[in-house]
């Protein structure tokens, strides 16, 4: 997507956002259990977690569409917890297509400007520019039902950007789209967000989306923040076993604790954080599939159970002597000889691993 944009839509300093001790319960269910999060101006932070972890509740509280039982939301240092949604100067793109069906794409984009008393001529000009920005110049007079899901979400994004919000809120905006459009649109959203410098809070349950789009990823579980760090750090240095298990694939392999190391299948590996167990205690090492190396060997310790071709990478699953299955992601060229039934040697990349009891 290429588009020339009006200078007024170029990057402006975004607003800092702070969530302080947000709590929200629904009867016996605790949706948010003291969420603290700081978002820097112009930063894109993803709230990532399984269904029911509280990420959408947090987003809706920031938007003012729901209230918290306690805690506060600050934007530009001001407490906006009690400010109604229509006075917050934020814009949200929803998961389900939320274009107003009685308005054309252009009128949808101009909706927020109309509420702000912008003249019809200026509204039309701005709406046209924003539709151009999202690559839909020719769709100005189309209604929602005359557009595909991807086009509707682009218009929704343009509508959100039209009011030049202090904060952009994205509530799983890509989850209803097919895979190809999803990848394309996520790149477009990230590119626009960076170009315009809007502070953005993005809710998703798709870790690939979160890792590829965000400056930082906030992993949530049961209403709490497990870790908030760069995508690279979340993936390579998960702070908790939950993050390790939730973000990316993870093998759980039995090992023996040995101070700052763990012995796994005869190999000593450094641990990210020594477990609070005596040396010699049985522990579980968490190892990424790409850190598991396999080579065919006549007297190998493991037997290939199955393999799954995934383009450049092939996932080979081997069975250990105790029946545990371990996944290994290998370059497809290196996995040619690892057919089911083949014996192989197993080794681990010399990287620190997380250990749990």
């Amino acid at each position, binding site marked *: 997507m290429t588009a020339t944009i009006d200078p007024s839509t170029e990057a402006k300093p975004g607003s800092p956002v702070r969530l302080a001790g947000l709590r929200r319960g629904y009867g016996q269910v605790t949706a948010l259990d003291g969420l603290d999060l700081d978002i820097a101006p112009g930063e894109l932070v993803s709230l990532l977690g399984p269904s029911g972890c509280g990420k959408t509740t947090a987003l809706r509280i920031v938007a003012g569409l729901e209230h918290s039982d306690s805690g506060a939301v600050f934007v530009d240092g001001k407490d906006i917890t009690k400010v109604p949604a229509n006075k917050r100067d934020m814009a949200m793109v929803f998961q389900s297509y939320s274009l107003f069906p009685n308005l054309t794409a252009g009128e949808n984009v101009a*909706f927020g400007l109309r509420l702000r008393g912008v003249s019809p001529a200026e509204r039309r000009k701005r709406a046209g520019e924003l539709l151009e920005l999202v690559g839909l110049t020719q769709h100005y007079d189309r209604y929602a039902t005359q557009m595909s899901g991807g086009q509707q979400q682009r218009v929704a994004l343009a509508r959100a950007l039209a009011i030049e919000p202090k904060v952009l809120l994205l509530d799983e905006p890509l989850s209803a789209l097919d895979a190809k459009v999803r990848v394309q649109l996520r790149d477009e959203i990230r590119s626009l967000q960076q170009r315009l410098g809007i502070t953005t809070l993005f809710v998703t349950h798709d870790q690939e989306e979160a890792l590829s789009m965000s400056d930082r990823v906030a992993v949530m579980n049961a209403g709490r923040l497990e870790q908030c760090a760069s995508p690279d750090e979340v993936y390579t240095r998960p702070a908790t076993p939950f993050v390790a298990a939730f973000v990316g694939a993870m093998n759980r392999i039995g090992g023996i604790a040995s101070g700052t190391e763990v012995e796994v299948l005869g190999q000593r590996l450094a641990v990210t954080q020594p477990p609070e167990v005596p040396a010699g205690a049985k522990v579980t090492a968490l190892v990424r599939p790409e850190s598991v190396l396999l080579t065919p060997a006549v007297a190998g310790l493991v037997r290939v159970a199955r393999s799954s071709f995934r383009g450049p990478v092939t996932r080979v699953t081997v069975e250990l002597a105790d029946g545990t299955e371990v996944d290994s992601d290998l370059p497809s060229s290196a996995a040619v000889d690892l057919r089911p039934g083949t014996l192989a040697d197993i080794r681990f990349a010399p990287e620190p691993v997380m250990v749990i009891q």
Partner: protein
Amino acid sequence: MADTKSRNRQRLDLLGLLPFLAYVAVFLGVPTVSVVLGAFQDDAGGWTLSNISAAAGDPYLHAFVVSTEISALTAVIGAVVGLAIAFAVSASPPGGVLRQVVSTASGVLAYFAGVPLAFAFIAAIGSQGLVTKWLGALGLDISGFSLFGFAGITLVYLYFQIPLMVLVIFPALEGLRPQWQEAASNLGASRWQYWRLVGGPLLLPPFLGALMLLFANAFAAYATAAALTNGIIPLVPIQIAAVMSGNVAVGQENLGNALGLGMILIVGIALAGYALMQRRTSRWLR
């Protein structure tokens, strides 16, 4: 090959419609054609416009006016009150008791008409009705209110018009997605601005459509008014019945056909408007 199979299957499925189509042809198509042709024929079978001109003059023109007034009034009141009820119910939790009760009650009451309804009202608020007596005992005298005039018929018609409105408009209210209001609010709209710019325009076509349906429903109602007023109020269906049954003058069946044609045209226009609005609504609120 697959296409041919699919087409054959579709043709087979259409066979299931045959009983319905036959029913419509016999009980709607044939009578309609008969009424239309009869409206332009004299007793000897020759073509004439005299029936039409008679139907367009008094006393029948007056009947059209009264029928239109009652239908319009009960449609407007029924639509407004029904919308208010449906709106209140739509705010209750989905699957809740209130929704089930109102939905079921509306389904029953919307089709409770005719002689039983007339009798129910006479027994309740007629001059010797139960409610009339109770209220009289409490010092509130409503015996001066006549069920047998314009106001009485209007009141009785509302008994089925309001539930019909609830039934018809409720799906449209349910079709309004909460996200639209949230999106509008998020963009800076107050509740009033949302209803003025989004919710209102979305509900207007189904509201107007329902209004037309209610109008047609009241215009075509016969049994309730006939049982209640015994022909005192000159409504079009009552006039047609009088002409057809020979109470007015012998040999005026074709005048009845002309009146019927007028009725078909008015109700047809209202229902066409309803269908048009429904089409627009389904495009927006699907």
